């Protein structure tokens, strides 16, 4: 083997090694980082239970801010109506995580407005019925869907007493990194879990409510705003008869 050839090989190996180092180093760095930024690498614990108190008296008639904010935060506004779909029919098929509901008392005629969403039950019927365990409850009380193992059977939608879940009826072209979604899976409100896991402590709907009808926080912390509000004002669970111990509570309903 000639000297020039040997040199050529040496140069080639050097170049390859340095190229590899450039390519791999960021990955190594990324792996090293989470040790410092601990929370995302640790499993959530049951020390916290996320929940809400919604004051229906403060919820204003005709206001839809929480719904708009949720749509934007979770990329629901990116779910386009498929070409050729009937608009009225599509309205019944498009996903919704939170919705405005207006009630009239049958006896007194009193009007109440409130937002409805997943009530984050301690014993969620959707989790009971899910055949694969895709519908699950985190230790911190958030009920959500593992989209990797959801087979799209919709049994959870049959079981939810709050009609809180949506099935993705069409292909979704554009989605947010923190809220991926795919055709054929079920989803619902997850209390903006991406925010909480990143150390934030509010939900999009709460931030958007200019009437301060929504108080969000840790139900297990007696000093949290939500716990103090719950202690101060009478509140109810929707369908309390089912004894699901919901994480979302309402006052003045």
């Amino acid at each position, binding site marked *: 083997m000639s000297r020039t050839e040997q040199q050529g090989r040496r140069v080639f190996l050097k170049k390859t090694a340095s190229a590899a180092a450039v390519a791999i180093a960021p990955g190594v760095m990324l792996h090293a980082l989470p040790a410092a930024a601990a929370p995302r690498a640790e499993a959530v614990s049951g020390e916290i239970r996320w929940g809400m108190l919604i004051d229906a008296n403060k919820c204003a008639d005709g206001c839809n801010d929480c719904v708009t904010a949720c749509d934007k935060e979770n990329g629901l506004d990116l779910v386009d109506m498929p070409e050729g779909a009937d608009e009225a029919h599509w309205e019944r098929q498009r996903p919704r995580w939170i919705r405005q*509901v207006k009630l009239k008392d049958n006896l007194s005629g009193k009007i109440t407005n409130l937002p409805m969403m997943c009530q984050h039950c301690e014993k969620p*019927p959707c*989790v009971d019925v*899910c*055949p694969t365990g895709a519908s699950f409850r985190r230790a911190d009380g958030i009920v959500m869907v593992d989209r990797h193992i959801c*087979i799209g059977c919709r049994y959870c939608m049959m079981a939810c007493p709050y009609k809180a879940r949506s099935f993705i*009826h069409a292909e979704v072209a554009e989605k947010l990194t923190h809220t991926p979604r795919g055709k054929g899976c079920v989803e619902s409100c997850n209390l903006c879990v991406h925010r909480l896991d990143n150390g934030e402590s509010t939900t999009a709907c709460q931030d958007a409510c200019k009437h301060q009808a929504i108080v969000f926080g840790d139900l297990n912390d007696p000093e949290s705003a939500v716990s103090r509000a719950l202690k101060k004002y009478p509140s109810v669970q929707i369908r309390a008869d089912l004894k699901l111990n919901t994480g979302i509570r309402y006052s003045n309903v």
Partner: protein
Amino acid sequence: MKKIHFSEWGIDSPRYWGMLAVLGSIVAIAGGAVYYMEHNGHWVTGMTNQVVWGIPHVFAIFLIVAASGALNIASIGTAFGKKVYKPLGRLSALLAIALLAGGLAVLVLDLGQPGRLLVAMTHYNFKSIFAWNIYLYTGFFAIVAVYIWFMMDRRMKAWYKPIGIFAFVWRLLLTTGTGSIFGFLVARQGYDAAILAPMFVIMSFAYGLAVYLLVLMFVFKADGRELGAALLKRLKNLLGVFVAAVLYFTLVYHLANLYGTENHAYEAFILKDGGIYTLLFWGGWVLAGCLIPLGIIYHPGLGNTRGGIIAAATLVILGGFATVYVIVIGGQAFPMAMFPGKTIIASGFFDGVNGQPMLYAPSLPEFLLGLGGVALVLLLTFIGIRMLRFLPATLSDEVADPHHAKP
């Protein structure tokens, strides 16, 4: 009672292949419908976030319920030792497997992610009745397959009765599981009732026998086998008892609901003001599915004619579809009672504003998928009886009926 010989279905080849071609085409069209629905997503169907289970589930549940019922004939012969039913057992078991396969195919192909079937086989939540059903259904295939083997293999005679009893118990569990899919749902007014499980069991008796009767009469007539009048009379009387039992369970279910005020709105919806659901309840479930068949079966003249028996069995099946439709779709169409004492007057998610029911208009592809399931049942059955000896050479009364009086 003479010794029973079994033989393959002996119809002419062109007729046999012609039938397979027709049924195969229906299955292929259903395959196209599945491709269309899965490719586009469920927005092309009538299903929505309010009515999440549609026509495919009506077909699937009917076929699955009928599957366990079709096995009854074999069970009566084996588990209950009725000799006259023994020669009928092989076809009964084959039909049970075919019906379950057809029903499950429809159910699985309607999933949002049918490709993830493997996930359903590897991830289990044992609190879910659906997860239990996966075991009950696959177990049913295995047990009934062994049952057929023991029926056909003389060497296994000692095990014939034990497997028959086991299969009978399993099929009761299976239909209990299917009924409990609805019975265990606390959320909706029309479900959340323990009676749904035994009601599904009795529905399976009726639908399974009706399907069995029609298939038996057709395949026997097609290749000129004799089917004794006394045997047929036994079967149609049995159908009468099962249909009467369905009516009884229907009565108890609704009476129980009518007693408690909390269910009055739901009962008014089904019995009185529910439009298509009310029509299907009275016209389909009660009249076509129960009262008219009972009238035919016990009519001294009509009940003894083959045309009468065919009409009665057909009506039981049509009424059965109406029944499952009212249960599955009607139960979802009725708005959930989230706020007792209040009326929802506006909602951003169709919560039954002013008590209005949820809308559902079935689409063509959904029907095609369901019909494909039915065609698959017949396809599997016809192939089965053509390939193996499922059919007794004759079921004339002097051969099949031990109590037959010689003229």
